[in-house]
């Protein structure tokens, strides 16, 4: 059947796409193993739909399609949880980066203010001397 060919090709493509490295190496191997199992089970149940129903009956679920739905709900919750955790991590990194920028800018401003204060001090000292000379000359 055409639908079986399309689905099998789709599953294999998604499997390859998700097996590309992205992020931590430690999780990558686990994810690849999981993807391989997922691809195998998906292809099996596309080619032999009755196998899925047989397995569903074995663990007390009425139809194979129901079992798929339950698995999908679980997978979605796992996705939400991992995405939330990743989001927290990314936000923390942004915070650290933004703080570094803010503090670096503040340090630069402080350094500039110190230089200006220093220059003002030395020009004050320079101003004082001619003034003293002038007074002497007037005498």
């Amino acid at each position, binding site marked *: 059947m055409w639908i079986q060919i399309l689905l099998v090709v789709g599953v294999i493509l998604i499997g390859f796409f998700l097996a590309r490295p992205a992020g931590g190496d430690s999780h990558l191997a686990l994810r690849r193993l999981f993807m391989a199992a997922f691809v195998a089970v998906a292809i099996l149940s596309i080619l032999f739909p009755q196998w899925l129903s047989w397995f569903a009956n074995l663990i007390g679920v009425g139809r194979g399609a129901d079992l798929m739905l339950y698995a999908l709900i679980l997978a979605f919750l796992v996705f939400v949880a991992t995405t939330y955790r990743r989001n*927290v991590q990314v*936000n*923390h990194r*942004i*915070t650290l980066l*933004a*703080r570094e*920028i*803010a*503090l670096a*800018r*503040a340090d630069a401003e402080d350094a500039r203010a110190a230089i200006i204060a220093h220059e003002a001090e030395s020009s004050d000292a320079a101003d004082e001397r001619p003034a003293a000379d002038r007074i002497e000359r007037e005498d």
Partner: protein
Amino acid sequence: MDSHAQVDPRRHSGDTWIVIPLYNEGSVIARVVAELREHFEHIVCVDDGSTDGSADAAEAAGARLIRHPVNLGQGAALQTGFDYVVKQPGARYLVTFDADGQHRIEDAMLMLDLAKHDDVAIVFGSRFLDDRTNPGVLKKIVLQTAVWVTNKTTGLHLTDAHNGLRVIRTDAAAQIHLEQDRMAHASEIVMKLGRTKLPWREFPVEVLYTDYSKAKGQSLLNSVNILVDLLVR
């Protein structure tokens, strides 16, 4: 303490830095900074990406302004302020102060007196130690929830967890690394200050609930956020 009216109003100016997390408080921040300037030399405003000109108003009023390039949250702004102040030569104490003018400067002065007199590292302001402050029923529920969670998770026994007025000695501040960017940082500060094992006190303060601060105060729903932020990491 009765004779504090005659005491030098700038007695803490030399070694104390004020840290104000600032986010869109354009209508009040200038007045808050100007009043603080009468007592303190060093006022650090950490602008958390305000979009209403708060930052310029604070700087014009005489605060040392540090700008976050993007909005990160009040906890992140406090931590940035801590990081800045602990590097400043001569800084011995820092005072966290809310930008909306709900704290009394006299309370901050008395808390600094207490910190120096009793040589404690941390003084927490508490609005529930006396009956000057009347937050209203809903707000009281929120705040008491926060106190309960904080005491459960920190092991300290405070009467008020989410009070923005705190005196922290710089050696204590240097040990704090806040990771909760949003409101749960108030409990996180208590927890991490508690872990330093440094001596602490609570001090009765009055929180001025102006119409303005009421309008943008913590909502009841926010206590749910505080709980979840603390329990789910």
